[in-house]
C-alpha cells in the first residue's frame, strides 16, 4: 500500500505533466492555451469537492459534537481555499488569453468566485471566535448555510445568464464533447488531481489534529 505513494509521485504525476504539456493536441478555439484546461478544471472540481467534504464534516460535528470532525472540516476548508484561489486565478488568466478580459462575470466565473469568498468568510468567522465549542458550532452552521446556496448557483444562475464560458464540457445530458485524445488526457488529469487530493486531505487533517493534540488528549481523558 505504501508503494502507491511512490507510484503516484514518480509515475502518475510525471505522466500527467507530459501528457498535458507536451503531448496534447490543441483545441481549435483555444490554441496553445488548451493546456490550462487540464489544470483549471480539476482544480475547480477539487475546490467544490473540498467544500462538499468540509460541509459533511460540519454536519457530523453538529450531530455528534465530535471535536475532531470540526478540525477535519477546517482542514478541508483550507484545501478548498487553496484550490479555489488556484481555480479563480487560472480561470481569470485563461479568460484573458482567450476572450480578452480578466473578468467577465459569466456564471462559472461567478460561482467559483463566490466559493472563494465563502471560504474566506468561513475563516474570518473562525478567527473572530475565541471559545472552541462556539467556534466549531458557528462555523459548522455557516458552512452548511453557505453550502445550501450552492445548488441555487449551479442550476439557476446559468439559466439567468448568457454564457461566455466554453460550452460546458460536461453539459446536462452528460455528453462529452471533445476529441478522443483530449478526453483521455482530461480524464487522466482528473484522476491524478483527485488522487493528489486524497493525500493532501490526509496530511492536512493530520496536521489539524496534531495542532490541537493537547485539547484532544484532555477530551479523551475526560471521556474515561
Amino acid at each position, binding site marked *: 500500500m505504501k508503494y502507491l505513494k511512490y507510484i503516484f509521485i514518480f509515475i502518475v504525476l510525471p505522466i500527467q505533466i507530459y501528457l498535458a504539456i507536451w503531448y496534447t493536441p490543441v483545441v481549435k478555439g483555444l490554441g496553445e492555451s488548451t493546456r490550462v484546461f487540464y489544470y483549471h478544471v480539476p482544480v475547480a472540481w477539487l475546490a467544490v469537492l473540498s467544500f462538499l467534504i468540509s460541509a459533511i464534516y460540519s454536519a457530523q460535528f453538529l450531530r455528534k459534537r465530535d471535536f475532531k470532525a470540526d478540525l477535519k472540516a477546517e482542514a478541508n476548508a483550507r484545501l478548498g481555499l487553496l484550490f479555489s484561489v488556484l481555480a479563480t486565478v487560472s480561470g481569470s488568466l485563461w479568460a484573458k488569453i482567450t476572450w480578452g478580459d480578466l473578468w467577465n462575470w459569466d456564471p462559472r466565473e461567478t460561482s467559483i468566485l463566490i466559493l472563494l*469568498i465563502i471560504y474566506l468568510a468561513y475563516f474570518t468567522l473562525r478567527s473572530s471566535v475565541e471559545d472552541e465549542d462556539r467556534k466549531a458550532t458557528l462555523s459548522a452552521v455557516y458552512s452548511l*448555510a453557505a453550502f445550501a446556496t450552492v445548488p441555487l448557483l449551479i442550476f439557476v444562475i446559468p439559466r439567468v445568464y448568457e454564457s461566455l464560458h466554453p460550452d460546458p464540457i460536461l453539459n446536462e445530458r452528460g455528453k462529452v464533447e471533445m476529441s478522443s485524445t483530449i478526453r483521455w488526457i482530461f480524464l487522466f488529469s482528473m484522476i491524478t488531481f483527485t488522487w493528489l487530493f486524497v493525500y493532501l486531505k490526509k496530511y492536512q487533517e493530520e496536521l489539524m489534529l496534531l495542532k490541537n493534540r493537547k485539547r484532544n488528549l484532555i477530551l479523551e481523558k475526560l471521556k474515561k
Partner: protein
Amino acid sequence: MFAWIKQVFSILEKDIRSEFRQKYAISGILMFAFVVVIAVSFALSGIKPGPRFGAILFWITVLFADLAGFAHSFIKEEEEQTALALKLCTEPAVIFWGKMLFNVFLATVLLVTIIPLSIIFLGLVTDHWLDFILFAFFASLAMTVGTTLIAAITAKASGRGPLFTILSFPVLLPVLIVAIKATYAILSGNTLMEQLNELITVISYIMLKGAIGHLLFEQVWQDASK
C-alpha cells in the same frame, strides 16, 4: 400552532417597541440609504442613471443599507445580555421567525423610503410600477430571509458590522445578481410576467433559506456558552 404564531408576533412587537424607544437600527438604515442616494445623485451632477445603472445603484444601496441594520436585533440581545432570558422562555424557532419578521419590518421601511428617494434623486422611472414594487418586495424579502441566520451567527461571534457583511455577501450574491437583472428589465419596459424566471428564483431562494435557517438556528442559539 396558534400559540406559536402569537409568540412569534410577541417577539416582533417587542423588537418594534424597542426600536421606537431607542432608534438605532432604523435610523442607521435610513440615514445610510439617504446619504448614499444623495451622494450618488450629487456625483452624477444631475445626469439620470437610466434603467441599467439605476437598477444597479438601487440594489447596491438596498443591499448595504440592509446589511447595516439586520444584525442589530441579535447583536443587541447579546450586548445587553438579554439573550439568556429569551432563551429560557421560548423555543429557538420562535425567536428565529420573530427576529426575521423584525428584519422584514426594517427592510420594508427601507423600501418605502428608498423608492421615493430614487425617483427624486436618481430619476427612477418605469411604466410598470406595480411590477417593480412587487419584485422589489420579494427580492428584499429574500435578502432578509437569507441573512437572519447569519445575523445570529454574527451576534454570537461577538463580531460586528464588518463580520456580518463579509458572511452575508456570498450568501446574498445570487439574490443581488437576479434582482439587478430583473429590475433592469422592468425599468426598461418589461412586465413582471416576462421576468418570471427571476421571480421564481427569488421565491425558491426564500423557501430554501427559510428552511435552512429554521433547521440550523437552534444550533447557533443554544450555544450560549458565556
